[in-house]
C-alpha cells in the first residue's frame, strides 16, 4: 500500500485529471453552473432581471395550476409507490416459489421496461378511449363504461401504465434483496420448526427493510417519468386529474414565464434533495451492515 503511494504519485494524479476532468467539465457546464444561474433567476423578474426577492416564489405558490400539478403529482406518488412496492414483493416471492418457470415469468414482467413509450401509445389510446376496448369489455360484462380520458379515471390510466412499466424493474431489485439474505437464517428457523408463513414475516420481511427503503425512494424519483405516458396519450392539456408538474413547466415554457419556472424548479429541487438525503442514509446503513 505504502509503496504504491510513494512510487509515482504525480503520474497517478495527472492520469486522474486526464480521466476525470472532461466529464467534470461537462457536468459543471451542463448541470451545476446553470443550476446556480436558475437559483439566481428565481429571485429576479423575467423581463429586465430586476431583483424581486421572494415575489416569484409567492406567485408560484399561489398559482392554482401549480397547486393542482403538485397535488396530482403527490397523489400519484402516494397511490402508486405503495402499490408498486407491495405488489412487486408479493410477485417476487410468488415467482421464487416456482423455480421451474421463474425465469420466463420474470422476463415477461421485465419486458415493458424495454418498450419505448411511443411504440404503445396507439395501444393505450385504443384501450382507454371512450369507445375503446376497455369500455367494450366493460359493456360486455354488463358494467357501465368509464370516461377514462376525461374524468378522474384518467388518473388511474396513469397508474396502470406506471405499474405496467415498473413492476419488472422493482421485482429485480426485490429479488436482489431476497438473495442477499443468508441461507443460514432460513435453515436455523426451519430447524426451530417455523412455518413458511412465520419465516416470511419474521425473517424475510425484517431482512428486506433496507431494500424496501431504497425501492420507495427510487420509485418516487421514477414516478416523475410517468409524464411521458400522460403526454403521449393526452397531449399538452389533459384532463385535470392527470395534470402533472411537467405539463405546467411546458406551458410556462411556451409562455416564456421563466421567472415562475425558476422558482418552481428551485422548490422541486429542495424536495428532491430531501428525498435524496433519505436515500443516502439508507445506502450508508446497507454498507454498514
Amino acid at each position, binding site marked *: 500500500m505504502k509503496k504504491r*503511494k510513494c512510487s509515482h*504519485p504525480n503520474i*497517478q494524479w495527472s*492520469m486522474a485529471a486526464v*480521466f*476525470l476532468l472532461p*466529464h*467534470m467539465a*461537462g457536468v459543471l*457546464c*451542463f448541470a451545476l453552473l446553470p*443550476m446556480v444561474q*436558475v437559483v439566481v433567476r428565481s429571485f429576479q423578474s423575467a423581463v429586465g432581471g430586476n431583483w424581486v426577492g421572494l415575489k416569484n416564489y409567492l406567485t408560484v405558490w399561489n398559482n392554482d395550476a401549480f397547486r393542482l400539478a403538485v397535488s396530482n403529482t403527490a397523489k400519484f406518488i402516494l397511490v402508486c409507490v405503495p402499490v408498486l412496492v407491495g405488489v412487486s414483493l408479493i*410477485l417476487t416471492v*410468488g415467482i421464487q*416459489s*416456482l423455480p421451474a*418457470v421463474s425465469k420466463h*415469468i420474470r*422476463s415477461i*414482467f*421485465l*419486458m*415493458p421496461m*424495454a*418498450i*419505448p413509450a*411511443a*411504440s*404503445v401509445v*396507439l395501444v393505450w389510446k*385504443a*384501450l382507454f*378511449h371512450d*369507445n*375503446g*376496448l376497455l369500455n*367494450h369489455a366493460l359493456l360486455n360484462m354488463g358494467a357501465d363504461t368509464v370516461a377514462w380520458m376525461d374524468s378522474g379515471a384518467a388518473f388511474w390510466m396513469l397508474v396502470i401504465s406506471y405499474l405496467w412499466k415498473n413492476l419488472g424493474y422493482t421485482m*429485480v*431489485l426485490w429479488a*436482489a434483496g431476497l438473495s*442477499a439474505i443468508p441461507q443460514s437464517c432460513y435453515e436455523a428457523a426451519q430447524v426451530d420448526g417455523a412455518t413458511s408463513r412465520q419465516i416470511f414475516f419474521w425473517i424475510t420481511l425484517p431482512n428486506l427493510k433496507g431494500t424496501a427503503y*431504497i425501492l420507495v425512494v*427510487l420509485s418516487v*424519483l421514477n414516478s*416523475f*417519468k410517468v*409524464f411521458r405516458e400522460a*403526454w*403521449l396519450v393526452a397531449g399538452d392539456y389533459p384532463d385535470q386529474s392527470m395534470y402533472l408538474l*411537467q405539463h405546467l*413547466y*411546458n406551458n410556462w*415554457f411556451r409562455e416564456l414565464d*421563466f421567472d415562475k419556472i425558476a422558482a418552481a424548479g428551485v422548490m*422541486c429541487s429542495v424536495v*428532491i*434533495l430531501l428525498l435524496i438525503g433519505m*436515500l443516502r442514509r*439508507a445506502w450508508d446503513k446497507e454498507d454498514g451492515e
Partner: protein
Amino acid sequence: MKTVKKGVVLAALLVLSVLICYPIWFAVTGAFSSQWELEENLSPLFSIGQEMAAWPLLPEAPTLRSLVEVLLDSPGFFSMFWNSVAISAGILLGQLLVDIPAAWALARLPIPGKKAILTAYIVLMLMPFQVMMFPQYLVLDDLHLLDTLWAVILPAVFSTFPVFMLHRFFQAIPQEIIEAARLDGAGEGRIFLWIGLPLGAPGVLSVAILTFLDSWNLIEQPMTYLKTKSLWPLSLFLPEITLPDMGMGFAAALLMLIPALLLFWNCQEYLERGIALSGGKE
C-alpha cells in the same frame, strides 16, 4: 395442499403475464393488419357514437403491406428513424469516451475530494428532468445548440448516472489483480486498458443497455429542445398518427420496438445486473 397453493400462484402469475403481454401483442399485430381492417376496428375511436372499437386476437388478413410501405416509400419515416439512431448512437459513443475514464478515475485513482464529487454526482443523477430542464435550456441557448441534435445528446453524455454505475462496477475488481499488474511494471494507462476495461466489460454492457433503452425512448428532451420537425425522433411523431395513417403508425411503432426488444431478449442478464446495481446492492 402445497401443490394446490402452487397451482393458484402459477395461475395468478399466468393471468398477469397475459395482461402484461397484451399491449405488446396489440402493437405487434397492429403492424401486420391491413389499413382497412384497422379502420374498421378502430374507427369508433375517431367518431362520436355508440359503436365500440374492437381488436381481434390475430389480424383477419395478415399483411406486410404497412411495413413495406413504411420501409420503402416514406422518406419521412427514415429521417425520423435516423434522428432516433443518431441521438442514441451519439449518446452511447460520448459516454464511452468520457464516462468510462471518469468512472475509472473515481473508482481506482487517487482523487482529492473524491467523496464530495461522488455525492454531487449521486444528487445530480437522481434529479428528474423537471428540475434539470430549465438549467439545461439556459446553457444550450448560450451555446447556440438549441434546435440541433446536440441539444439532446450533450446533456445526456454528461449525465452522472452512467459514471456512478460504472464506478461501482470498476470498484468490484479485486485490488490484488491491479497490484500485481503494478508490480509487473504496468503503467496506469495500461492497467486501465488491459485490466479495467476487460474486467469491467460486463458492467459497461449493462450500463450501455440502460442508456440505450433510455435514449431510444427520449421524449421530454427533444420536445423541449427541438423546434424543427425534421429533427424530431420517432417518439415525437407516433402520437400524432390519425386514423388514415393507422397502418403506417403501427408499422413505424413496431420498427421502433424491434431494436429495443432484440436487445432485451439477448442481454436480459446484463440488464438485470444493471438494475440490481442501481439499487445499491451487489
